[in-house]
Structure formats: structure tokens, C-alpha cells
């Protein structure tokens, strides 16, 4: 078990290294001068620029620059934001918490909706199955930012009294905070629920044809107990895995959704950073998000392997 975790993490390292190279190269490939961008103005003396260059290590060979940057990043130093003039990491973490909460609520919503529709589709078949599959196809075609915009339009037209742009910080009022994230989370969740729904349907159909379900019927167990203990519990394993792997989609989606609903998370930070050409911040966000997604995939992998050993015993 420990060996397997170590192996998975070791396999992750070269990818992480590649990710860091991309994050580094992207920001060094910028049109224009990094030092000039850092100064935030184009009217600056040559001497001043040189000073900035030296202080940022831009006079060194590129590979040394990369190493310096990487070592600093490993130590938690993601550089200093051009616009905020503060360490990027310190700005990033509280925003990450907001995005994390939004992602979590959206993930739960997607799972609830996906499992419910997938289960109904697999168990009831017929017209319900057809309706769920049509609904899923449609949802797949509606991008989350379109859903979000339409929700905003809907509330603007018909329920203008509901303040949907009023983000409440968690510390101020936890309940109001969660409530203020419900609509944004819903716009994120709908698309992701499709994958979960399709996987639930397939898993339930697969499990229902297993011998142990026949045994459960032969025991005379009630339908409800067969559904809960035999069908859902077995089908849930692949479904949870799929949900974990949707994290990337949720994180990516939150960029748009936070911008639309003005939620002060990582997505909005990225959007602002791009608008103000705050490259260290962009770099930090990209690196952090990719690391989280990689770690999450490893966790899902390990969790699945553990469950798999239990499920596929032959």
C-alpha cells in the first residue's frame, strides 16, 4: 500500500516538473519585456530597468532563472504580484479557499443530480430513460457560462429582488455564504452532472446483472434494501471516481462562473491578473491549479485501487 502510494507520487513528479516548465516558459515567452511589465509602466529609465532586471535575476541564463524560480516556488515563494505588490501565495490561498468551497458545493450538487438521474434512468428504463438521456445530451451542449448568464438574466427579469451578486464571506455569515454560492454552484454542476449521470446509469445496469443481486432477490429482501445495499453501494465506487476526476472541469469552470457572479475566488483573481498583466500571479495560479488536479487524480487513483482490490477479487 505504502509502496503503491510512493510509486504513484513518484510517477507524478516528472509530470509536475513538466507542468512547472510550461508555467515558467509561458510567462517568459511574453511579448514585451518582463522587467518592463513588472515596473507596470513603459516610461522608465534604462538604469532603473537594469536594476529591476538584476533584482529579478533576469540577467542570468534561462535555465538558472528557471531553477531559481522553481526552488523558490518549492519553498512557497511564488513571486510578488505586479499589481498588488504582495507575495502571490498569500493572495492566492484565501481565494483558493473560496474556489474550493464553490467547487465542493458544485461537486456535491452534480453528484446528487447525476446519481439521481442515472439511477432513475437505469431502474425505470422506458420513457424515463429516454428523457434523462435527452436531458443529458442537451445539458452537455449548454456551456456553464451560458447557463450562468441565463440564470442571471432570469433572476434579473423575474426576481430582481433576489440579490444574486451579493457574495457573503464565510466568516461573516456561514449560512448566507453557502446560500450566496448556490446559484453559481448550480451553473457549474449541471454540465458535470451529465458525466456522473451517464456513469451511474452504466454502473447500475452492470451491477443489476450481477449474481449477488439475484441472491438478494432470492433472500426475499425488499426492493428498497436491495437498491440501497446491493445496487447503489456497488455502483457508487466508479461513480465517486468519476466525480473526483471531474475536479479539473469544475476548477476550469469556476474561472468563468466567478467572473459572472463576482465571487472573489481564484478564477476572478486569474481574470483580474490577466486583465492587468500580472504575470507572477497568473503563473502561480496555473502552477497551483495543475498541482491540485494532479494530486487529486493520484488520490482518486489510489482510492480506486484500494476499492478495486476489494471488488475485483478474482
Amino acid at each position, binding site marked *: 500500500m505504502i509502496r503503491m502510494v510512493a510509486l504513484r507520487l513518484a510517477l507524478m513528479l*516528472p*509530470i*509536475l516538473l*513538466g*507542468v512547472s516548465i*510550461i*508555467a515558467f516558459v*509561458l*510567462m517568459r*515567452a*511574453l*511579448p514585451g519585456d518582463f522587467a518592463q511589465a513588472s515596473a507596470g509602466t513603459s516610461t522608465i529609465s534604462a538604469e532603473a530597468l537594469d536594476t529591476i532586471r538584476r533584482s529579478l535575476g533576469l540577467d542570468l541564463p534561462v535555465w538558472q532563472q528557471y531553477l531559481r524560480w522553481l526552488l523558490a516556488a518549492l519553498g512557497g515563494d511564488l513571486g510578488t504580484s505586479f499589481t498588488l505588490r504582495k507575495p502571490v501565495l498569500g493572495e492566492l490561498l484565501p481565494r483558493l479557499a473560496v474556489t474550493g468551497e464553490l467547487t465542493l458545493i458544485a461537486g456535491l450538487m452534480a453528484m446528487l443530480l447525476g446519481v439521481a438521474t442515472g439511477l432513475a434512468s437505469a431502474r425505470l428504463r422506458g420513457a424515463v430513460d429516454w428523457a434523462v438521456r435527452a436531458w443529458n*445530451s*442537451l445539458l*452537455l*451542449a*449548454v*456551456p456553464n*457560462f*451560458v447557463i450562468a*448568464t*441565463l440564470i*442571471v*438574466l432570469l433572476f*434579473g*427579469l423575474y426576481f*430582481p429582488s433576489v440579490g444574486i451578486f451579493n457574495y457573503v464571506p464565510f466568516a461573516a455569515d456561514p449560512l448566507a455564504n453557502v446560500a450566496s454560492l448556490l446559484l453559481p454552484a448550480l451553473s457549474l454542476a449541471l454540465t458535470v452532472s451529465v458525466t456522473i449521470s*451517464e456513469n451511474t446509469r*452504466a454502473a447500475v445496469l452492470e451491477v443489476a446483472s450481477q449474481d449477488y443481486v439475484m441472491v438478494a432477490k432470492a433472500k426475499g429482501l425488499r426492493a428498497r434494501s436491495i437498491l440501497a445495499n446491493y445496487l447503489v453501494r456497488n455502483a457508487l465506487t466508479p461513480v465517486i471516481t468519476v466525480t473526483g476526476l471531474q475536479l*479539473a*472541469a469544475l*476548477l*476550469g*469552470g469556476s*474561472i*468563468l462562473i466567478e*467572473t*459572472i457572479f463576482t465571487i472573489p475566488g481564484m478564477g476572478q483573481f*486569474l*481574470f483580474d491578473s*490577466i*486583465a492587468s498583466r500580472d504575470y507572477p500571479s*497568473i503563473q502561480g*495560479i*496555473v502552477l497551483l*491549479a*495543475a498541482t491540485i*488536479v*494532479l494530486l487529486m*487524480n493520484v488520490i482518486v487513483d489510489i482510492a480506486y485501487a484500494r476499492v478495486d482490490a476489494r471488488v475485483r477479487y478474482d
Partner: protein
Amino acid sequence: MTEPKRPRSHGQILLAVGLTMLALLVLLVLFGPLIAPYGAAKTSPASLAGPSAAHWLGTDSIGRDVLSRLIVGGRGTLIITFTAVAAALAAGLILGLASGYIGGRTDLVIMRLLDVIFAFPVFLLAIAVVAALGPTLRNLILTIAIVYTPTLARVVRGPVLSVKRWDHVEAARSVGIGEFTIAVRHVLPLVISPVLVQTSLTLANTIFTVTALSFLGLGPPPPDPNWGSMLAEARQFMELAPLTVIGPAAAIVFASLTFVVLANGLRDVLDVAGR
């Protein structure tokens, strides 16, 4: 016994619907500017006007005809989408085939490199690349090609791994056919079904990415209209002229739905296992 007449399958119907929708989109690309009643940038004094005989979908905040902008903007969106996916498909085919067919160290290197791209949330990577390179048409296409290449390469590589061990490959080799010819003529055609399905899904995803980037202001630079930027611009006044929002929203959904339906139809007809 006579064979009972087989009814049209679910997949065939989907495929027919999808192809019809695709034909509409292609017509839009080919003849967009000819169909559009007004120029995309042509303004009229009536801004944020409701639907009328002159402006079927009304006008936007500076008096431009929404329908015309939808048609012209759709052309731009779709050209980017088709070009980018064609590039991703070409790259995916080459890399996936090379990786799966040659195997060994080549496979390892290619797949690890693609894994790195795969590690990024697609949309985040797209934003980062466009932000770094600058939002020009060429960069947009390049970015989208890069982010979707790994998916397509994987879909090619998987079946190649098994098909290359089939007897007909050995037979071809035994009569002296070159490896390149075998890979392209005897292996590639057998793995094309899942690739078609994935390409169709990638087209749907690309519609999303292109319009989403434009929505964030990272699309092709103005004044070219684009469904994503139209949606973003319209948000400010949407309570006054809902059609300026609903128009581009519906267009985006129609285009993605085309490829989703097409993918489902292809999957059924070509009997490709689920994702």
C-alpha cells in the same frame, strides 16, 4: 424465413439529425456574409430595439443588428473551431499512431509529454496560453489545437496497441510492405471509429472553449463579432433587451448540440463503446 425489415436504429436517426444541423452550420460558414441582412458593424439609430420587421432579433446597445452579428459572428466562431480541431486531429493522429505503433521509448516519451498538457484543466491552460501569447486569431487556434491534442492522441493510441498485433499486420509485413505503409494503410483505418466520435465531442468542447475565451475578452480581437463576446457585451443591458443575450446563447447551444448529437449518433452507428 424472411428477414424482418429492420427499423431505423436510434443511432441512424441521431446521425441524420446531426448531419442536417451540421449542414446548416456549414452553410453559415460558406455564405454567412451573403445571408446577413446588415453588415456586422453597421449601426442604426435604434439601439436595444426589440424584434421588428427590419431587425428580426432587435438591435444591440449601439444599434447593430443582432441577427446579422449572430450570422457573421457564428462564421468566425466556427472557422476557428473547425481549423483548430483539424489541427488537433492531425497532431493527435500522428502522435497517437507513432506512440502506439512504434511503442517502447517513443511511446513513453510522447505519452509523458502529453500527460503534462493533460494535467492542466483544459480551460485554464487555454487561458494561460492565450494570455501569454496574446489574443490573436492564430494564437487562439494554436492554443485550442494544443489543449485538445492529448485527448485525440490517446483515443488513437489505445486501439492501435491491439490492432498492430492482428494477423493482417503480420501478413502485410511478411510480404515486404514497409512499416510506415502498414501503420497508415493497415492499422489507422481500423481505429478510425472511436476517433470520429471523439473528434465530434472535441468540436463541441471547442465551441465551448472558443466562446468562453471570447466571453472573457480573450477571443479574436474586435471588431470581429463572436458569439462569446456578444454574450459578454449583452450582459450589461440584458434586462432591457433579453434577445441580445438569448440570441448568442441559443446559437452556442445549437452549435454544441450539433456535435453532441453527431457524436451520439456516430457512437451508436459505429458501435463504439461508451467513453
